[in-house]
């Protein structure tokens, strides 16, 4: 395996980590105004992800940095091409980040209510847009011979991509509800369980519709065949079984299963486009792939050494931070946010 492939896998892993982790804090963010009946309850919900959301978001920053370092043309084409969508996503991410930190720093109920809704909207926008973006990467977009996106904004809003957006939205909501079910106590936890049960059906319907649509809209038949293999099938099965785990009061396992769905779906998309990184809908010769988009072998080597040393360290201390704060949070806990 050459270093280009290694970096393709590494970036896939970073996105998997990002969607798995920030997926649940997007979900929790969106659920705040709906599951928290009063101020204390809302604070409990926010505090359940309070320790983690910022560390989760660094997965995205690292993925972006890794794309820039390993595949500069991918970084340049993607972010200049999806420009207005990315602006909206950044606005969402900025607002929700600030909302976490500011919402409980003033006692005024209006202040808190506004920030709760901003947190919800700021989580909603990226949760939707990530699905749109990933789907467009999979489907292919108009890219010319200079590796430049020429499709305009509305080209990104095709029905398949929008279906992808709504699908990630519901899966993140479900993932977030399960996290709350797992991480809180009493009424909030019970309410989160009910929400998860209700969210499951639309989530799986959308997910199945998305998979079906992908057979018509993408190259999946060519690259993976009618039977796409173990990874995508596991993604579907995990989502399917999560329902029974929710019912049987196994929120931890259910959460892991929706996490598997998120992770394996992301892997599936990366496997399906490999060795391309951006597919041109205009001419296959204009695809960006892991070679024509890549940095020099020297840079890839340097970056590999750095990643080899530091990624395990990062993983170790992030897992440690989750371990330190493994206790469930209730209305009686000391709340910071």
């Amino acid at each position, binding site marked *: 395996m050459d270093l280009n492939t290694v970096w393709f896998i590494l970036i896939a892993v970073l996105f998997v980590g990002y969607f798995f982790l920030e997926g649940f804090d997007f979900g929790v963010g969106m659920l705040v105004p709906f599951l928290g009946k009063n101020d204390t309850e809302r604070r409990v919900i926010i505090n359940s992800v309070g320790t983690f959301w910022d560390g989760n978001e660094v997965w995205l920053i690292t993925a972006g940095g890794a794309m820039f370092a390993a595949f500069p043309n991918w970084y*340049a084409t993607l972010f200049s091409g999806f420009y207005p969508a990315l602006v909206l996503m950044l606005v969402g991410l*900025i607002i929700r980040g600030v909302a976490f930190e500011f919402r409980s720093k*003033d006692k005024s109920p209006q202040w808190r209510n506004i920030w709760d809704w901003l947190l919800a909207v700021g989580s909603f926008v990226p949760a939707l847009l990530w699905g749109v973006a990933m789907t467009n990467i999979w489907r292919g977009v108009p890219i010319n011979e200079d590796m430049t996106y020429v499709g305009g904004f509305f080209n990104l809003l095709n029905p398949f991509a929008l279906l992808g957006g709504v699908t990630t939205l519901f899966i993140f909501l479900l993932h977030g509800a399960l996290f709350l079910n797992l991480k809180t106590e009493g009424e909030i936890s019970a309410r989160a369980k009910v929400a998860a049960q209700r969210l499951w059906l639309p989530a799986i319907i959308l997910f199945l519709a998305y998979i079906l649509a992908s057979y018509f809209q993408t190259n999946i038949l060519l690259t993976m065949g009618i039977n796409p293999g173990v990874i995508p099938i596991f993604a579907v099965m995990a989502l399917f079984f999560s329902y029974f785990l929710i019912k049987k009061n196994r929120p931890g396992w259910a959460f892991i299963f929706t996490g598997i769905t998120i992770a394996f779906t992301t892997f599936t998309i990366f496997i399906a486009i490999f060795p391309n990184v951006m597919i041109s809908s205009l001419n296959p010769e204009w695809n960006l792939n892991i070679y024509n988009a890549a940095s020099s072998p020297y840079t890839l080597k340097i970056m590999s050494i750095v990643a080899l040393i530091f990624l395990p360290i990062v993983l170790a201390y992030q897992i440690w931070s989750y371990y330190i704060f493994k206790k469930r949070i209730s209305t009686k806990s000391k709340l910071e946010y």
Partner: protein
Amino acid sequence: MGAVTLARWQFAITTVYHFFFVPLTLGLSVFVAILETLYVVTGKEVYKRMTLFWGKLFIINFILGVVTGLVQEFQFGMNWSEYSRFVGDIFGAPLAIEALLAFFLESTFLGVWIFGWDRLSKKAHAATIWLVAIGSNLSALWILIANSFMQQPRGYELVRDAAGNVIRAQMTSFADLVFNPNVWVQFPHVLASGIVTAAFFVIGISAYHLFKKSKDGQAYRLSLKYSVIYGFIGILLVILIGHSQMQHIVRIQPMKVASAEAIWNTENPASLSLFTIGDEKERKDIFAIKIPYLVSVLAYNSLEGEIKGINQLQEEYEQKYGPGDYVPPVAVSYWSFRIMVGAGILMLLLSIYLLIYVIKDKFEFKPWVYKALLFAIALPYLANSAGWILTEVGRQPWLVYGLLKTTDGVSPYTAVSTGEVLFSLITFGILYGILMVVDVYLLKKYALAGTSEIDKENDL
């Protein structure tokens, strides 16, 4: 306005704004870590109150640095895609390393620090804020390694296509990138300016509480004492390192120095302008007050020493790089340099004045001094912004010095239309404006509430 101009405005606004929050994060993280260490070592409750109080203000400031940093991470690709393709092989590496080494560290451990008071031992808890401080200051190192490549490209080769046109720069030595001499004047200068920013922030707020005779006077006296010492060390370092930095820039980017000093024609010895009103088109002074010899003395530590003028450098560059305008906006460079240095000198004088008092444990000042100290919080911000404006504007027309012009780095209009740039510029402008108001409101509220209110707010 064209797309390039709009993209430049967007980058300038989002970056200067980002850098309102960064220096305070750099300096205050270390300051809070020192306070918590004092708490652990001495066991005195006053240090815990100080840690919590300054820590709270640190967090309110930190978050805006984080969220505006998101824009920084992606806007190279968004607005400057051709730049990203050109230097990605080199520039992307420190950015990715910054995220992996620094951002994970500071954000993970800040979460642990905020929520971990009851979960960790005292020592372990103090260790987490040190990790935050190390993470923040490490992030400055890596982004300045990236920026230094734009100032003084090192450790690269140019890759050409079949027709012989340069298509991109490629890394040949990671060590040359990291040990670029520019890094090692720029990075300590920025670290020291972080110390100064935090010090004047703490000085101003502590002085206010001492003036108002707030409860817990001991905490503010100690805060004032430590911050004055911290700030004095910081401003000395800023000035000394800044001086070395300028001597470095005379050699690597003489045009930046010529425009910062508004030296139109080569001078030997070169005089220092205290105040110049010039005509940028005609390239001449209309009115100027100058001190003879001083630029040569500063640049070369000698009464002799040639400082090349804008006209001569322009000729030289035309021969070297082909026809074009190689003169950066002189008025912007000249005045940003004066604002930075002026603010720096004021801060030095203030630090010396305060130091004389606090080392004798005197904390009583005349009323106007308290007021002045409150306003002095703004001085480091002025200096920090002006410093970056000089660094980046003074490099124009280059994006990467000598290799890539700013006009060649922007995203092609087929990918990003002028309307889209305008849309994002307005969006970020409004959003950032609102966030500034909210952030200042909260900082003010928590600063005025003082050390004794901190715990009450937590137990709502």
